């Protein structure tokens, strides 16, 4: 059923200090268009106060109802129809607070009146300070104050509960409600002991796991320690067993006996070795003696043999030498003869040679004399040539050097030039006539021309003529003088009178130089070398030779012998000498051959003689020794003794080998080492046993086996506990998840009807959209084209429009419930564009066919065209009027 407001009268409420009333509210759409500050929002506030704010309350909200500065009790009276019956509520706040409700059940006041209102409207008593729209029930949702519907909000508990039966009827199920909440809370609480909100294990699960970890670690530790102790026990057993073995070994007599036997055999062995040494020495001595005797006998035999042989050889040598002696004598004689012949030949040859030599000397002396004579002649020639040469050289030395001659030539040219210059610049005077009385510069002046080069005073009697030639003449004169002077001094220097003399001298000097070269060639020609007199080439050698010869040794000429004859004589002497030499050599050779034959024989003879002598003396020496007479018998006896000694040595050697002292010592050492090792092993094992016993004593008392068993059982218990805890945790997790799923599924089913109704409207606004409602029936998101947009993310305009549309949907559902429903929108759709506004107005108009809708707006233009019941809020004192457009 719709709730139809009919008349609202206000007095002393907030800005309405004076009484104001709105009347003529119609069933359908009512539009109140008034400018700002007119009191539209206050009107809605007054309506809420009349229906939902307890009249007796002094809360903050009620306090705010009083007009500012006013002391009156705010009063509101509302007339309305509900379920076809007329109702009136008159409520006064603060001062003289009262309520009176008139309805189908008659009049009621105070709490009764409040209760009747609550019963009618489904609201509950509001105990808040500032007013709680949640307690207002359906109308709290549907009477929307200014800016209250700008965002999409869910319905309050009362509305949800109210629509539940509708929903339950529709989906055939219920939301769990109290039982669910109770179970869920408990499960969550238990779950929280096992799981963190993010599904991580915690508290009990962790504790159980830790207990397992600790217990297992403890068990492991205990087991290890116990195992360690057990190992010690078994080691101890082993050590004891080994010790027993070692002790048995030590106690064993076998080694001891063996050793004793060995020591005895060692004694035997040592004795045998000693005997062997003795026997060896004996054998040695006997055999040495035997060897001595044998040696003596042998030497004697050999000496006799040598004696015999040497004597035989001596005989032979002597016989042969006797044969050779004649030949030797002959050869010696021949040699003597040959030597005399040779001497003679040598003398002859010497004579011939001397003669030849003398002849040759004579020839050479003759040749020398001739050469000396020739040299003397050439010397005279040379002396003459040298004189000529000196003369020519002197002449040649007068040659004036070319440079000086050039200077002379230049000076000559200068003189000539100076003369020409003077002639050109001089004043020429000529005196003719009578020259007497005429003096020039104090001297008489001759006739004729004269050249003046300086100031000249000519006196004619008493007259004096001063002639001054041009200035240049004087300097020219000077230059000439200088040039002349220079030339003169140059010539004087050379001792010449003039330049031409100089030239002539130079020519003569040149000729002399050429003459000199000729003379030199001639000197060379007259001074050749001459081997005969040992003369070298050159004038000096010749001059020296002549100077030496001056002694004038004039040797007398002698006959020149015949050299050829002398030479032939010498050659004949030479060949005679050669022949004599050959004969001498052959004689020497013959003698040598004979002597050669004789020499070995002589030495053999001498050797044999010596051997015989030696042998004789040796035999004598041997035979003179005392043992010689019994030598043969002694030797035989010595041999027998040696044989016997050898047999004894053999025996001793055998004995010594049978008892090897070194081998026995080694065996004794082995036995000793074994005994020592056993002793060491025993003490080591005893130490080990003591150590292990100590360990067992200290560790054994700790009850390790007990602890190990306890720890093991604790670990098992911990594992069992962990298993139970895990099981419990899994159970709780599954249960909780299942509860979540159940809730989600159920709420999905529950919001279905809400969504269906809302969608009917919203689809007109957002075609093709899907809606997503939360469990508490709030619109959460709009799904467009598969994209889900949270309501908070939509544009403000859309949010506002959705807020209005969902309210209409709830209003529809409440209407179905038979709840009194009315929709009041204060200043709605402020963000709507024209198209949306038209659409929304259309939807609102349709809704107005099912329920009363009151629009409070200040926007005349926006709502001017909207068909509906126009209401205006009249001024103070007057009542608002309504008119249908």
């Amino acid at each position, binding site marked *: 059923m719709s709730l139809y407001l009919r008349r609202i009268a206000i007095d002393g409420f907030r800005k309405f200090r004076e009484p104001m009333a709105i009347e003529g509210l119609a069933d359908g759409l009512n539009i109140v268009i008034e400018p700002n500050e007119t009191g539209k929002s206050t009107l809605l506030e007054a309506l809420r106060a009349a229906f939902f704010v307890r009249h007796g309350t002094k809360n903050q909200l009620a306090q705010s109802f009083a007009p500012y500065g006013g002391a009156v009790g705010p009063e509101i009276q509302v007339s309305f129809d509900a379920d076809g019956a007329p109702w009136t509520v008159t409520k006064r706040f603060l001062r003289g607070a009262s309520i009176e409700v008139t309805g189908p059940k008659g009049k009621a006041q105070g709490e009764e009146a409040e209760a009747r209102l609550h019963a009618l409207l489904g609201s509950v008593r509001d105990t808040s300070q500032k007013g709680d729209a949640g307690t207002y029930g359906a109308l709290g949702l549907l009477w929307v104050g200014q800016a209250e519907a700008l965002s999409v909000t869910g319905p309050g508990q009362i509305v949800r509960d109210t629509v539940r039966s509708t929903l339950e009827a529709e989906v055939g199920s219920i939301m769990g409600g109290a*039982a*669910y909440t109770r179970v869920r809370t408990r499960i969550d609480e238990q779950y929280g002991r096992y799981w963190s909100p993010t599904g991580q294990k915690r508290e009990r699960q962790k504790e159980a796991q830790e207990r397992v970890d600790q217990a297992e670690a403890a068990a492991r530790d205990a087991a290890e320690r116990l195992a360690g102790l057990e190992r010690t*026990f078994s080691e101890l057993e082993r050590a004891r067993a080994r010790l027993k073995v070692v002790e048995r070994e030590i106690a064993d007599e076998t080694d001891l006996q063996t050793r004793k036997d060995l020591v005895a055999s060692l004694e035997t062995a040592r004795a045998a070795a000693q005997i062997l040494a003795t026997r060896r020495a004996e054998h040695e001595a006997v055999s040495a003696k035997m060897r001595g005797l044998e040696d003596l006998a042998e030497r004697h035999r050999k000496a006799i043999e040598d004696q015999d042989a040497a004597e035989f050889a001596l005989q032979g040598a002597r016989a042969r030498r006797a044969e050779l002696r004649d030949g030797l004598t002959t050869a010696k004689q021949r040699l003597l003869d040959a030597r005399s012949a040779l001497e003679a030949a040598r003398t002859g040859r010497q004579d011939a040679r001397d003669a030849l030599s003398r002849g040759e000397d004579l020839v050479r002396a003759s040749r020398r004399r001739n050469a000396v004579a020739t040299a003397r002649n050439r010397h005279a020639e040379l002396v003459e040539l040298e004189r000529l040469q000196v003369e020519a050289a002197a002449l040649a030395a007068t040659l004036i050097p070319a440079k000086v001659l050039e200077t002379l030539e230049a000076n000559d040219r200068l003189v000539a030039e100076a003369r020409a210059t003077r002639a050109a610049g001089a004043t020429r005077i000529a005196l003719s006539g009578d020259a007497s009385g005429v003096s020039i510069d104090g001297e008489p002046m001759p006739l004729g021309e004269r050249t003046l080069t300086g100031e000249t005073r000519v006196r004619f009697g008493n007259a004096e003529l001063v002639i001054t030639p041009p200035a240049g003449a004087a300097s020219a004169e000077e230059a000439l003088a200088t040039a002349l002077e220079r030339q003169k001094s140059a010539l004087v220097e050379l001792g010449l009178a003039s330049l031409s003399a100089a030239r002539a001298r130079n020519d003569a000097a040149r000729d002399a130089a050429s003459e000199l070269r000729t003379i030199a060639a001639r000197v060379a020609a007259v001074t050749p070398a001459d081997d005969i007199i040992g003369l070298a080439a050159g004038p000096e050698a010749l001059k020296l030779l002549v100077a030496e010869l001056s002694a004038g040794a004039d040797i007398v000429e002698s006959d020149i012998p015949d050299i050829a004859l002398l030479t032939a004589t010498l050659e004949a002497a030479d060949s005679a000498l050669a022949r004599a030499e050959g004969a001498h050599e052959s004689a020497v050779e013959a003698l040598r051959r004979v002597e050669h034959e004789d020499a070995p024989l002589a030495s053999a003879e001498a050797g044999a003689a010596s051997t015989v002598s030696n042998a004789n003396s040796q035999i004598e020496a041997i035979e003179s020794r005392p043992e010689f007479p019994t030598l043969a018998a002694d030797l035989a006896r010595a041999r027998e003794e040696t044989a016997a000694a050898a047999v004894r040595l053999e025996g001793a050697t055998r004995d010594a080998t049978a008892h090897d002292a070194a081998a026995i010592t080694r065996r004794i050492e082995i036995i000793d080492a074994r005994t020592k090792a056993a002793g060491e092993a025993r003490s080591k094992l005893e130490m080990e046993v003591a150590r292990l016993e100590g360990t067992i004593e200290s560790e054994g008392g700790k009850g390790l*086996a007990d602890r190990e068993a306890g720890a093991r059982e604790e670990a098992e218990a911990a594992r069992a506990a962990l298993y139970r805890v895990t099981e419990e945790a899994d159970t709780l997790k*599954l249960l909780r998840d299942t509860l979540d799923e*159940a809730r989600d*599924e159920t709420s999905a089913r529950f919001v279905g009807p809400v969504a269906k109704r809302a969608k009917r409207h919203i689809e007109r606004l957002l075609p093709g959209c899907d809606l997503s409602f939360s469990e508490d029936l709030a619109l959460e998101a709009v799904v467009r084209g598969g994209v889900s947009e949270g309501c908070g993310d939509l544009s403000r305009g859309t949010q506002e429009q959705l807020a209005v549309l969902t309210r209409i949907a709830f209003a529809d559902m409440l209407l179905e419930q038979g709840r009194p429903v009315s929709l009041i929108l204060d200043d709605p759709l402020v963000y709507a564009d024209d198209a949306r506004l038209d659409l929304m107005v259309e939807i609102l108009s349709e809704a107005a066919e099912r329920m009363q809708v009151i629009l409070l707006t200040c926007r005349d233009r926006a709502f001017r065209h909207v068909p509906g019941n126009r209401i205006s809020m009249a001024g103070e004192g007057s009542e608002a009027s309504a008119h249908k457009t």
Partner: protein
Amino acid sequence: MKLIHTADWQLGKPYGRFEPEVRAALSEARFDAIDAIGKEAIRHGADHVLVAGDVFDTEGPEDRTIVQAISRMERHPCRWWLLPGNHDFARNGGLWDRVRQRCGDRITVLAEAQAQEIEPGTWLLPAPLTHRHNLDDPTEQFDSMATPGSRIRIGLAHGSIRDFGSQGETKNQIAPDRARRSSLDYLALGDWHGTLSVDARTWYSGTPETDRFQRDDPGHLLLVDVAERRDPLVTPIRTGGFQWLRRSWTVNDQAGFDAECDQLLGSIDPPSTLVELSLAGITSLTDRVGILSKLENDVGHRVRYLDVRASDLVGRPSEDDLASLSVEGMLGVAAAKLTALADAGGADASVAKRALERLFVEYSREGRA
């Protein structure tokens, strides 16, 4: 003459899978058993207590365990003859050396296989174990022991009796006719934790304090009256403080369970009873929750220890269960999902079953509103 035959004290057993307080009680009970034995010995005039092996649980117990054992024994004016068993076998430097260092002359450690004349003419022939696992029959040695002037020969050994039919070698096995073979008047055996008579002269005394779920009987000792030329008179006497019960119940509803429960609780002394309970059967979810809840909240607190194995107790949600949940909308949906998951089998099925049960438990906790 009278003597006490006991064995398998297993002192120092850790009981690691129990909660600390239960563990402490069980450990302490084993020491208390010594006092119980000592008292019985005095009460029945037995001068000798023969302990047939496994006095200690391990070969390496804590010093405290040893000292406790010795001091408890020495409180009673009788002679104690301790035989090393397989748990506490004798070896050099081991456990028994530690015991000897501490005990007085009324305690004798029989670590060597040498006959002892405990009373004039009465010889004790011990067969101590020197290894954890002996392959030979340790009682073979009886035949080579000299017992000059013996009138009564008593054997003391630890190990299991060789089965006549068994083949191959097993550990510490004792000839079943050892008493006859070695002319023993009595053979006191240990290792078997229950009281058992092999023949008239061969007995296992069992442990004086039960230590595991194996048999329901509590621990006993044997009072043995031996005499020449006759079989001994053997009387088991209870010494055990705790009873270890293992039960398997098949229940199909709460009522059946309750009946079993009442019967059990009526027949036992709950504070000294440990129970290992295996449940099997198919019940409704409500019943299963009810059963487990009773075990957890009631029975478990009454007895010393309760170990419930309910994996074979299948709780299937009944129609009613599911209906009551489905009224609750989302809870119903969740229950349906879990049921489907549980029915689908596979790895998650068991988790799903538990989750379903948990959901039901939580839903039922404060009654259905």
